[in-house]
């Protein structure tokens, strides 16, 4: 099966990787985390979210982890996802790429103020 190419890294995939930095999350958790880190601008729907998750799993950038069932959550068995080393590396390199881009933007004086 040919692997889904992740270059350039789609915005949704990058945000999912960022959301998983530091904690394992299930789908809804990822969605909320992405919404928070983008101040509500990106609200991942189920199609985009699980499509991206599937790709990231195939590329071994994230992995599924077993988590004990949440006692407060009825019978809902949720799948949790964790960032792999490769995923962390890719997220870092993408962040660095964006930082480079930001430096160029600053050098060209297209940013108003210096708050970024």
């Amino acid at each position, binding site marked *: *099966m*040919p692997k*889904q190419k992740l270059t350039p890294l789609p915005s949704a995939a990058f945000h999912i990787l960022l959301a998983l930095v530091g904690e394992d999350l*299930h*789908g*809804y958790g990822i*969605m909320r985390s992405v919404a928070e880190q983008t101040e509500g601008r990106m*609200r*991942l*729907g*189920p*199609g*985009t*979210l*699980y*499509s991206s*998750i*599937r790709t990231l799993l195939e590329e071994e950038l994230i992995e599924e982890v077993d988590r004990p069932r949440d006692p407060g959550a009825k019978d*809902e068995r*949720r*799948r949790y996802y964790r960032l792999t080393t490769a995923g962390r590396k890719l997220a870092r390199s993408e962040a660095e790429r964006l930082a480079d881009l930001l430096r160029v933007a600053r050098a060209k004086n297209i940013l108003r103020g210096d708050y970024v």
Partner: protein
Amino acid sequence: MSEKIFRLLLHLYPSRFRQEYGKEALQLFRDRARNQKGSWQSVRLWFDLLGDLVISLPHEYGRSQVELAGASPKAGPDGIPTFFVFEPASPGRRPLLFGALLSLITFISVPRLHEVNHFRPPSNWNFARAPTYDKQDTAPQQPASEAEQGTVPTTRRTNATLNPTARHRIIEKAIASIKQHHVDQVEAQQAADALLAHEQRGDDNGAANIEQFARLATSQMRAATGSSELLLLYSPNAIPERAPGPPPPPSAAYRDEMQRINCAFERVEILPHNIGYLKLNAFPDASVCQATATAAMTKLNDVDALIFDLRDNRGGFPGMVSLIAAYLFDHPEYMYCPLENTTAASWTHSPVPGNKLSNKPVYILTSSRTISAAEQFSYDLKMLKRATLVGETTAGGGHAANLHSIGDHFYVGTIEVRAINPYGKNDWNDTGIEPDVKVEAPDALQAALELVDKQRERK
């Protein structure tokens, strides 16, 4: 309820996606629905979901195709090649029924859609093209109306005959051309059927020569369709086709000629008893002759009655018809023109500032030579009860067809526009216009003057 809808929407995804993430997606939906209460939040939730569907569906199916494209036929254990398929599971009964129903609907609707397409305007239907009845500035062009009257240039070649194979080829080309160019595809099909049926019956063998065959085919098409514009013409002399796109600007020669003949305004006079008399021998291009027309109408502004002498008028441009007719109304009036679709330009620019002619009696003198745009002018004013026609029945040669070469000196005449006549199906094409007062053309002016006198006495 909304969960049910979402479950249904999930079925739009490939089954593999549903199997792997269907439950998770449903769970995500539940979570969001639980945390997004209130009507505005619900709207936002569904907005997000539908947007997500639009974006992610093609992506998922694209992925399925990539997977499929990567598959290659491989031999099974018994040597029979097997293939990967989109959906690993066999389709259930419901999808099969749905598929069958969808196929049935498609099979039924495709021919219907095709019928609707028949009414699509032809590709060369150019609204920007200013129509003319006759080609005053393109003298070499052969108007179809003349061809219909039997003035086709004849040479020895017209006496040649066609063998059945060649004749069949001409018929096929004619049919293709008619279907491509004629405004009414139903008529085009009727014409095609008639041509083929007559050919099969051997009716065309009665034609003694090529020209007779062309005339015979023309009559066959007209009998089948009732459309007098359809034409198969044989002309040994080449007939230039009208180029697609906007018409060329009036040539210098045309301008010079119009200047020489005062734009065909032969006489603009005020007769005794304050009767205006305008002898107009054409309706020239308004872009060249507007000033002349305005001057003529201004000169006649104070008359008590107006006589248009169109006995020698050989037609011209609908724009000039509208321009002159504008003086005869105090409100915009619809001027039916068979060559044009109804547009804003179909109405006269009435009232004309300072004009006093809008309520004056109008008489139009006609002869059997009055043709084309002159017939449009006469017909419209007669139908609008704005003018009294005095003279002879007009020529009845209004609708010059567009000629399309189909090779071998044959031309097919079709029309690209069929305007809806508000006064009935037939206008003056072929039949001419009956005058209100029928007199010999040379006596028409005298008869009109007597009518003016009578009317004045009645006042």
